């Protein structure tokens, strides 16, 4: 069974088409038109809901303006200018820096904590049996299925100003931390679990029979094989945490210091007018950070995987 990391190259590789077949596997003219029509519809839909909006954020954030010198669609006459200094100002001013930094370190910490605990929980789920294990599995998936605002209400009720257990984490980074741990746990567990399940355990048995203790076995045999999956899970948890809004919207804020980036962008948007481009600028910064981290965990994951299969 393929592990998570190796799904990436496989998902992009299609089985080679026999030479006798036409390009998209259709023979009739109606079929070809249908495929083209369908593809055009698909591209139109994707442009409408993803591509154009993302371009709009980049444009507003980076201050991109396009001037047409020629007439109409003759876009070799177009020139574009970007206002990088405005973008930079919007991203490096004090409140923006606080917000971005808060999101960054919180997400890294949360992804790290859940990476460790994700492995522990996956080990327990895969290798242990006890009454109520099914329930545990279900509870782990709860944050995955729960709407983020419900998670927000749940957390702010238990750890907010009217806390029934008298733990008030309202407007503290600890409250944010708990909320983010809550929503990212399923990612960390589910990234590692399938790999553990497909592990056949022979090497482990060998190691044990040679006298290595449980922890040694784990560190030298299990952990390296799990590393790609752990990295993938880390990346996913990080991406989710840094963009998370619903669950932190009710518990964040106050003194401008416990406002993570997503809430900061929302506040800028609410201020409106000239603050739209500031919101867009911070969004671009956040996107770049997420992209960089996802790319690096992806690359690291593939590399470790490759080294393992050698």
């Amino acid at each position, binding site marked *: 069974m*393929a592990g998570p*990391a190796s*799904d*990436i190259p496989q*998902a*992009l590789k*299609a*089985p080679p*088409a026999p030479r006798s077949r036409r*390009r998209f*596997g259709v023979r009739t003219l109606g079929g070809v038109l249908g495929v083209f029509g369908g*593809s055009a519809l698909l591209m139109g839909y994707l442009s409408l*809901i*993803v*591509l154009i*909006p*993302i371009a*709009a*954020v980049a444009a507003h954030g980076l201050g991109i303006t396009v001037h047409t010198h020629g007439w109409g669609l003759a876009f070799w006459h177009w020139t574009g200018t970007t206002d990088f200094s405005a973008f930079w100002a919007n991203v490096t001013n004090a409140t923006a820096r606080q917000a971005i930094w808060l999101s960054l370190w919180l997400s890294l910490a949360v992804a790290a904590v859940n990476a460790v605990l994700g492995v522990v*929980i996956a080990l*327990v789920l895969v*290798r242990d049996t006890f009454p109520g294990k099914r329930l*545990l599995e*279900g*509870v*782990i*998936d*709860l*944050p995955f*299925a*729960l*709407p*983020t605002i*419900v998670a927000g*209400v*749940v957390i*702010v009720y*238990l*750890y907010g100003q009217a806390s029934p257990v008298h733990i008030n984490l309202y407007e503290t980074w600890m409250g944010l931390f*708990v909320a983010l741990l*809550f929503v990212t*746990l399923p990612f960390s567990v*589910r990234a590692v*679990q399938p790999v553990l*399940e497909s*592990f056949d*355990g022979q090497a482990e048995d060998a190691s044990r029979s040679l006298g290595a203790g449980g922890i040694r076995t784990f560190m030298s045999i299990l952990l390296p094989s799990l590393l790609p999956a752990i990295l993938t899970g880390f*990346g*996913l948890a990080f991406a989710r945490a840094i963009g998370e*809004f*619903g669950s932190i*919207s*009710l518990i964040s804020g106050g003194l401008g210091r416990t406002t993570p980036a*997503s809430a900061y962008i*929302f506040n800028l948007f609410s201020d409106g007018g000239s603050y*739209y481009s500031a919101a*867009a600028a911070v*969004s671009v910064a956040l996107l770049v950070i*997420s992209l960089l981290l*996802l790319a690096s965990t992806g690359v690291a994951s593939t590399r470790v995987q490759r080294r393992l299969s050698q």
Partner: protein
Amino acid sequence: MTASVIAPVAEPVRNRETNTRRRLPLRLLAIAYVSLLIGLPVAFLFGKAFGLGVGTFWHQITEPGALDALELSAKVAAIVVPVNTVVGIGAGLLLARRRFPGKRLLDLTFDVPIAISPIIIGLSLFLAYSKIGAFGPWLFKHGFMLVFSVPGIVLATMAVSLPYVLRSIVPVLIEIGETQEQAARTLGAGMWRRLFTITLPAIRWALLYGIALTLARTLGEFGAVLIVSGNVTDKTQTLPIYIYDAWDQVPTNDAGAFSGAVLLALISITVLVVLSILRARERRLRVDIA
């Protein structure tokens, strides 16, 4: 990379017999962490909502504002889930089986909604389609309100729930290959016939899993819809927005927020149970195939 986390898990290996005493500390840690982090807060929410009395709970969720929100959420789901299912199947077939220029871009496009904060998705739709956007003035002049309206909510929800069907079915499509369809083609079956009688049934559990995920995401979407829908009560309030609004009126409207949250939680838990059953079925099916 995202595929494996939302695709159903692989078939399990035989359970290994090891010393219970050795497993106990890990087991306790796992149970303690999950219970404290997830179980406890959720239990308290249910406790609070029903602690106000089942009568109050019922009264709250049958309030006109709540019912309007529920109705809107359902309407949005009725549009978004089928559309993203069709798109997911079409694009999934393309990605799994064909090579073409721009394939990488298509793949990346479907990754965007998962990797991006819903606030940024909402903001991007707003910047693109509101009156201050590039297309805005033209759209509004011709009567297309793509923000601050129900179509805007539909768009935002489509954007955030886009990839789930695709990411669920692509690994399975790749795994099962095209041999059956090829055989069917040589026997004379047309494109649609092949799709409905061979391809879809073969991926049905993964497909249903993806649909259930899409539904869960659609009903629960908050950040993007918050930005795009404006602040109009009882017309552009989906259930999550209704809960957020009600929370703002705490301590005056405790009951509304908690009851709404519990209602939405119950719906999501139902979807979750369905998901688990589907996952188990998928596991069993794969064991049969393997």
